[in-house]
């Protein structure tokens, strides 16, 4: 009956619905846009990561009598790290540590590269063990107190170990080098002469054929894959040698053939160039290059579960004795069956194993947050399959990893596969901090003499990332031969430590100035960090403007809602006094009369709230579209939640109406029936 009563005064009902409905719709619009802006701001904030990377090297400027001197020093100190952690909650969200180690896995076939204008594989994958037969001696060993060198042309009879990317090697120019006193004698003892069979351990293998192709492609401006050496012509055009002083030019430097450019001309090739066709250059260096015990860093656990440099641990200094720096297997005459030879010569078997290990060598970076690694933050690297590591995995040190798409393809691996990573130190132990920051995070070559450092650990591949430049060089750059694991999953001590150079600071978006000011207040140079915000500063003003506008709209809509409520109470609810008095005069109880009046008053408010919320949702949806259009690339960040926001706002408005009506009626209902009737 109460509903019917409202319809008996349609004009008043419509006026109420319009007044309350419009105000609720406006309130929902304000609340919805405000909530959307908060959500959008949060999502925008989440989608941008601002990082600050410490500058590796600081220059101390000092006035001298003769001028100004600059001394390099480490830009990171324990005090700075402590200060950064003290800024957490201010401009700094968190200080993330990333540590670096080497590891190998038989499941990996590491990627190699041909550097621009170069011809070598990646150093960690370089080298090989070959059986050669000397064809001719290009340079015989000469007496030299500092060491000895020699060169031969040879046929490669067997490749005992080499990275698969090197392909089939049949012909090679081999250079021998023994850079220590007595080296020449050692080379002479090899008896380098035509027809002699040697087993050699090359520390570097260069594809001369590819080098020649690279030269031709770069000079003629064509793709290296289009270079076809079968097009080489030995019919030199007439007058090709004109202008050259043949008498003073070595024969192997004179034009001997021409590679046609297809336009009637071409590129002259020398005898030396022609010798490169199908040939490799092998460097056989009798020097291990070990600096194992110069200043090996010692680590201890820190309070956060990471590792810090143990400054109190004793450190050994001084170089290794000469014996440790000379290869146990360098070059040696071989006769008979190769397999039998390896069985009886364990040093050579170890040399073969070393090269095999190198073929599966990768860098392993333990991180507290993948997105805080510069390349991921800048967009140079991005996840393309599977997922990144979760907060729980970071915290719990889960044995999961993310590898590059290129490494996965090359190794025939996919998300869900498992790999066993076996850690090792490499050939150097003491110069990592500087090297890692300045030269990038490159895999160190495995050394059989140093060996492995720990048992293999099984990791599950949970995601693949794509790197724009597989071989980018420079500070903090890493190659596609890099595996990311949770920092706390490090399975042995890393090369880097938390007061080292390899850490990144995630800042609150837009807090770069505040960060620099905080640095300055703590006595550190403002410019000791390089900040990257991934483009956040470009939209920061828009985000801030959007939030301010949304807040204002919400404030205005709330004021309008309260104004409508005041009108509703004054012109409708308070006028129910007479009816309340009449009901009581006819015998209605206090609670019964109040309940009936409450329902009667609230019905239009409830209907208005529902209609207003629905209208508000439509308005917010439209507003969100316009907001999204303003942000272009972020439409998904600010849409989709308006029905929920508006329902909540509508419910809040209805609760406000109900409270106001209830309080008004309760206050009114304290009067006697006679007074209520008179008041009406």
């Amino acid at each position, binding site marked *: *009956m109460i509903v019917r*009563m*409202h319809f*008996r*005064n349609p004009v008043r009902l419509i006026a109420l619905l319009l007044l309350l409905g419009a105000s609720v719709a406006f309130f929902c619009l304000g609340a919805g846009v405000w909530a959307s802006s908060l959500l959008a701001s949060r999502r925008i904030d989440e989608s941008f990561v601002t990082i600050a990377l410490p500058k590796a090297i600081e220059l101390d400027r000092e006035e001298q009598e003769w001028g100004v001197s600059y001394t390099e020093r480490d830009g990171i100190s324990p005090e700075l790290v402590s200060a950064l952690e003290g800024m957490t909650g201010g401009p700094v969200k968190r200080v993330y540590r990333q540590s670096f180690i080497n590891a190998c896995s038989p499941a990996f076939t590491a990627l190699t590269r041909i550097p621009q204008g170069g011809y070598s594989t990646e150093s960690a994958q370089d080298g090989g063990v070959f059986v050669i037969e000397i064809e001719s001696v290009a340079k015989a060993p000469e007496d030299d107190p500092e060491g000895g060198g020699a060169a031969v042309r040879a046929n490669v009879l067997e490749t005992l170990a080499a990275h698969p990317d090197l392909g089939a090697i049949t012909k090679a120019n081999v250079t021998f080098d023994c850079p220590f006193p007595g080296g020449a004698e050692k080379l002479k003892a090899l008896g380098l002469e035509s027809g002699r069979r040697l087993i050699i351990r090359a520390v570097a293998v260069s594809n001369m054929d590819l080098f020649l192709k690279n030269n031709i492609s770069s000079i003629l401006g064509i793709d290296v894959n289009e270079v076809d050496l079968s097009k080489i012509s030995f019919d030199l055009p007439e007058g090709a040698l004109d202008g050259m002083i043949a008498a003073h030019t070595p024969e192997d430097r004179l034009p001997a053939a021409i590679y046609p450019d297809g336009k009637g001309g071409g590129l002259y090739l020398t005898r030396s160039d022609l010798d490169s066709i199908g040939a490799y250059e092998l460097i056989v260096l009798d020097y291990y290059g070990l600096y194992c015990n110069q200043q090996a860093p010692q680590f201890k656990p820190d309070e956060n579960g990471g590792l810090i440099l143990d400054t109190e641990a004793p450190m050994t200094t001084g170089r290794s004795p000469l014996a440790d720096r000379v290869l146990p297997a360098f070059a040696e005459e071989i006769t008979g069956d190769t397999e039998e030879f390896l069985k009886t010569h364990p040093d050579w078997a170890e040399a073969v194993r070393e090269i095999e290990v190198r073929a599966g060598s990768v860098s392993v970076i333990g991180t507290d947050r993948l997105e805080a690694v510069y390349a991921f933050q800048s967009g140079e690297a991005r996840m393309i399959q599977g997922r990144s590591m979760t907060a729980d995995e970071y915290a719990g040190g889960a044995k999961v990893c993310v590898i590059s798409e290129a490494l996965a393809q090359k190794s025939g691996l996919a998300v869900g596969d498992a790999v066993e990573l076996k850690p090792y130190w490499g050939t150097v132990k003491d110069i990592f901090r500087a090297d890692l920051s300045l030269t990038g995070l490159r895999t160190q070559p495995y050394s059989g003499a140093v060996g492995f450092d720990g048992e293999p650990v099984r990791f599950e591949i949970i995601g693949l990332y794509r790197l724009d430049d597989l071989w980018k060089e420079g500070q903090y750059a890493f190659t596609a031969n890099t595996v990311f694991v949770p920092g706390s999953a490090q399975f042995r001590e890393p090369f880097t430590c938390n007061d080292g150079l390899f850490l990144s600071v995630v800042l609150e978006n837009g807090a770069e100035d505040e960060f620099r000011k905080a640095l300055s207040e703590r006595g550190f140079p403002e410019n000791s960090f390089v900040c990257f915000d991934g483009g956040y500063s470009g939209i920061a003003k828009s985000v801030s403007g959007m939030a301010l506008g949304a807040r204002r709209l919400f404030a205005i809509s709330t004021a309008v809602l309260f104004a409508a409520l005041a009108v509703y109470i004054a012109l409708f609810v308070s006028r129910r006094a*007479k*009816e309340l*008095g*009449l*009901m*009581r*005069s*006819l*015998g*209605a*109880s*206090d609670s*019964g009369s109040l309940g009936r009046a409450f329902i009667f008053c609230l019905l239009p408010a409830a209907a208005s709230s529902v209609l207003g919320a629905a209208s508000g949702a439509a308005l917010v949806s439209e507003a969100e579209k316009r907001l999204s259009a303003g942000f272009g690339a972020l439409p998904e960040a600010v849409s989709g939640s308006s029905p929920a926001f508006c329902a909540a706002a509508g419910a809040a408005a209805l609760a406000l109406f109900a409270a106001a009506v209830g309080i008004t009626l309760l206050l009114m209902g304290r009067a*006697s*029936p*006679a*007074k209520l*009737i008179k008041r009406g």
Partner: protein
Amino acid sequence: MALLKAEELCYHYRTKAQTVRAVDGVSLELERGGFYALTGRSGSGKSTLLSLLAGLETPMSGRITVNGIELKRDVLTLYRRNTASVIFQSFNLFPLMTVKENCMYPLLLQKRSERDAERIACGMLEKVGLDGTYFKRLPAQLSGGEQQRAAIARTLAAGTELVFADEPTGNLDPKTGGQIISLLRSVSHDEKRCVLVVTHDLSIADAADAVFRMSGGRLEE
């Protein structure tokens, strides 16, 4: 025993200028089947006394007993629902209820079934001269006389022993007023209910079994 007995009723209220003794030590008795008139000048306290007797106000002092039971706050609702009802000068019908719904309302409060309530309400409306064509009309669609008849029908339909009427003919023409007074008189005499009418109309006072005259909040001897 008197149906209603009021003893030394007082009701004062304050205005900005003074304290008004609207009812000041009034005592009276009303018998079952009596038709009483309460007269006096404007401001003499008639309507206030009626409100006190009808349970619409609570006296500041004094007491009212009905059928020997004292009217206290806790029984007022039941008193208004089952024992006493009021006819107001300005009709006071619920504006958004039809004539029939207005008449049914007090009956529904008495927990009567809807069917019973409808039957009684319709019968009473016809008795006051409003036939079925009026039942579904809203008060605003009736004339003043018709509204007053509807209001009387609502009061009488409740079947209470005590009926208080506050100038029920004040807004009616003499002919209609006469009909209303006849109706009230017959209700008191035929149905043995007690009717107290507040009025300025001397013809009503003449028709009453007893007349109370008020002046300055007191009943004149």
